[in-house]
């Protein structure tokens, strides 16, 4: 045994594991899982139900009308109801046990009488608007399960079919607005004239859930984006990145979207995001304690989800002014019988609609639509579980703020990451802290240098990795995104003003643009304009930017842990890709081949080795820390190199010195 090993063992033996170690680990694991409310299986259920009718087995049922709380009307159907829409005249829901057997039901808002419309067999998704009811249809089997896709136009009072409008492809979702019926299909977003029933055209692309607000059609497009479509031209005029959207509604002049089962990162919870219906910018985000379906209307916004035991639903009013749950939620007991069993594991999620002073909520298991008068909502039993995370208060429980005469430091909660905050002298970031005082070199050198693009007072936060290979700085316990409440807690008041995406370093990033809370709208507009211009800015290798940075060719970018010799304007230097970022230093021509050097981002040193053994160490600024006895080592001209915003170039710091080191560098070593 070596002497060093003996020394280390002697030290290590001063500790011993506490008893019941596995038990303590189990408790810690359980705590972590507490926030993982939704499994992938539950998400699959949602997707499946949202996309198709699901697979349902009928148990048959008794004729006994299910009981309900006072004021709540239970409306029995002959099949499990799924999506539902409503206006002042009626609620319309699709019920059935298979795609081909589903029919549309009309529930009269005055009498609560439910009538199946047999001529709608194969019904998929309902809609109501422009004076009519509408439903997508798949009649007859085919390879894709929809032999004759169509949209039915129905009389809003009698349910009579007024027109059958053939579609060219399998329909997904349907929405009505701006004088048209909009159907997302496998061939794009089909636009149908609501008056004539004529198919006017199709917006190319992949779209799913639809909503109408702010003069635009809104549609999910891609896994993490919502498209804003001009209803007159049919053009996609904007796209907003949101974390894993699953449901979307329009309410109170805004678009609201929420996740269903986390935001993709391992422990992140569900998030409700509010978009400005005029421009698609993110107004705010709220963490949700449960995921569920959203009900939106002019009368308000609600989140509905089942209780853990599946015997009740919880209705959570959302304050449309703040985006926060307006209370703990109300428990809506479901009829104490199960007539239909969704042949999937887990619970089913209710669908809902709001109109005529009521919420209409479907329950698959009992084949019931529950009508809850809004003015009776308060008489329901309050939910024992708060819907909003208690930690959602700005910076009070999760975030920590340290203040001193030197400045302030904000620490975001464990698991949150601020990857970059390009305040450039104003705000610096290290790990999960950011501050208006220097915290040392940023460990993440992977992001664009936007110093010349952002005016004083603005900052850029890269807080959400969208895809691509996971950079090594994203540990497996990363959770995103940061909420705007966290930033409001910072002195000076920072709020998120916009969310967009860009590519950097081979990955997609969602970027939250934060500015001071008191920033004028004109500044916001300027920043948005600048932000929008990031991607188109072309870079040419060898050119010098306005801020003095020199652009390097993409071909010179070395892999992590390696370096390459780069020549710019006839001057040579070594470009190193260290774990913490890129760096450049001058390179003498006569460096012995046995020498290697590494940048140690953690120690903030450059380590030179010879034959694998330490030769010399330099501080971060290039000054000699340690070298061979008698050697006369010169300081190294070292400068960080940043990745350009296009992900293809590197930017050399203006102060980087090039060319051979001064003579005598190697001295008599």
């Amino acid at each position, binding site marked *: 045994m*070596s*002497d*060093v*090993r003996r*020394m*280390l*063992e*002697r*030290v*290590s*033996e*001063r*500790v*011993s*594991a*506490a008893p*019941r*170690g*596995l*038990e*303590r*680990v*189990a*408790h*810690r*694991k*359980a705590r*972590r*899982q507490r926030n993982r409310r939704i499994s992938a299986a539950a998400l699959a259920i949602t997707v499946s139900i949202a996309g198709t009718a699901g697979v349902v087995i009928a148990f048959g049922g008794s004729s006994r009308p299910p009981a309900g709380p006072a004021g709540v009307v239970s409306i029995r159907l002959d099949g499990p109801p799924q999506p539902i829409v409503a206006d002042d005249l009626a609620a319309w829901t699709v019920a059935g046990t298979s795609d081909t057997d589903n029919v549309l039901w009309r529930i009269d808002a005055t009498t609560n009488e439910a009538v199946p419309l047999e001529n709608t067999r194969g019904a998929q998704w309902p809609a109501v608007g422009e004076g009519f009811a509408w439903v997508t249809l798949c009649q007859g089997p085919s390879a894709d399960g929809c032999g004759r896709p169509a949209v039915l136009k129905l009389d809003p009072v009698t349910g009579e079919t007024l027109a059958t409008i053939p579609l060219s492809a399998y329909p997904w979702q349907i929405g009505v607005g701006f004088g048209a019926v909009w159907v997302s299909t496998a061939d794009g977003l089909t636009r149908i004239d609501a008056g004539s029933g004529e198919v006017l055209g199709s917006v190319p692309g992949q779209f799913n859930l639809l909503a109408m607000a702010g003069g635009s059609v809104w549609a999910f497009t891609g896994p993490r984006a919502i498209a804003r479509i001009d209803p007159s031209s049919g053009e996609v005029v904007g796209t907003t990145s949101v974390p894993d959207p699953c449901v979307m509604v329009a309410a109170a002049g805004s678009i609201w979207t929420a996740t269903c089962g986390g935001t993709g990162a391992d422990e992140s919870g569900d998030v409700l995001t509010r978009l400005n219906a005029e421009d698609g910018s993110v107004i705010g985000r709220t963490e949700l304690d449960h995921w569920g379906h959203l009900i939106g209307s002019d009368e308000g916004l609600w989140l509905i989800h089942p209780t853990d035991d599946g015997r009740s639903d919880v209705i959570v009013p959302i304050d449309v002014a703040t985006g926060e749950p307006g209370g703990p939620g109300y428990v809506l007991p479901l009829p104490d019988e199960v007539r239909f069993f969704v042949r999937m594991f887990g619970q089913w999620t209710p669908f809902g609609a709001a109109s005529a002073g009521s919420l209409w909520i479907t329950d698959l298991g009992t084949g019931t639509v529950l009508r809850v008068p809004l003015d009776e909502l308060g008489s329901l039993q309050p939910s024992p579980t708060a819907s909003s995370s208690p930690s959602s208060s700005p910076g009070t429980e999760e975030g920590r703020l*340290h203040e*001193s005469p*030197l*400045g302030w*430091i904000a*620490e975001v909660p*464990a698991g949150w*990451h601020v990857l970059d905050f390009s305040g450039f002298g104003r705000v610096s970031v*290290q*790990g*999960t*802290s950011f*501050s208006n*005082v220097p*915290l*040392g070199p940023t*460990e993440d050198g992977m992001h664009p240098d936007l110093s010349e693009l952002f005016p004083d007072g603005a900052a850029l936060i890269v807080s959400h990795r969208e895809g691509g290979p996971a950079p090594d*700085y994203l*540990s*497996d316990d990363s959770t995103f995104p940061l909420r705007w409440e966290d930033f409001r807690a910072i002195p000076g008041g920072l709020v998120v003003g916009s969310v967009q995406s860009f590519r950097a370093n081979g990955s997609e990033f969602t970027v939250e643009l934060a500015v001071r809370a008191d920033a004028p709208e004109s500044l916001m507009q300027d920043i948005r304009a600048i932000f929008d211009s990031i991607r188109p800015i072309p870079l040419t290798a060898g050119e010098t930017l306005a801020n003095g940075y020199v652009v390097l060719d993409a071909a010179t970018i070395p892999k992590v*842990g390696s370096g390459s010799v780069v020549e710019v304007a006839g001057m040579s230097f070594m470009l190193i890709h260290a*774990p913490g970022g890129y760096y450049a230093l001058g390179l003498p021509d006569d460096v012995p081949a046995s020498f*290697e050097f*590494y940048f*140690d981002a*953690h*120690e903030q040193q450059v380590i030179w*080795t010879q034959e*694998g*053994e*330490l030769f010399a160490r330099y501080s971060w600024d290039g000054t000699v820390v340690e070298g061979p006895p008698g050697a006369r080592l010169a300081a190294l001209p070292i400068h960080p190199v940043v990745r350009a915003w296009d992900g293809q170039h590197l930017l050399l710091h203006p102060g980087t010195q090039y060319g051979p080191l001064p003579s005598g560098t190697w001295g008599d070593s």
Partner: protein
Amino acid sequence: MDRMKEPATGVSDLPTAPNAGDFEMFFEAEHERLLRALFVVTGSAEEADDLMQDAFVAVWERWDRVGTMQDPTGYLYRVAMNRFRSKLRAAKTAARRVMRADPQPDLFQAVEDRDLVVRALAALSDRQRAALVLIDLLDFDSEAAAHVLGIKPSTVRALASQGRTALRKSAEQPDE
């Protein structure tokens, strides 16, 4: 082991997952060694325990996959070292340094500071200690240690070499 399979606390997910017994065996076999290694690296029994628990939770949550690996122990140490190097801790350290409001506790404060080896360890950088522990205490070769630490093998060797030199110097000095 039998006692651990039925914990008095009733933590429901402890024995239920497939291969949970394998994980228990893995835990029993590795946790003491990991704790001691982390203590040498961090200089804090509390932090070592915290890191050890975190690492085992991470491994447990992926046990279906990790348990089939050729070297689950290597994965465990990689997770532990990754967490040790996590930015949260770096940020907290930086915050303390700047703010001067919450001075970092002395390393190895739980042990007598007259021990020259301990003092020599405390004087090393975190990564020097980590490299030293992996190479000289846990018998990782430089390739495996480099994989755990996310750096090049030659860097690991350099870091460990520095650590050895410091420890040996401490051993040459007489105790105070």
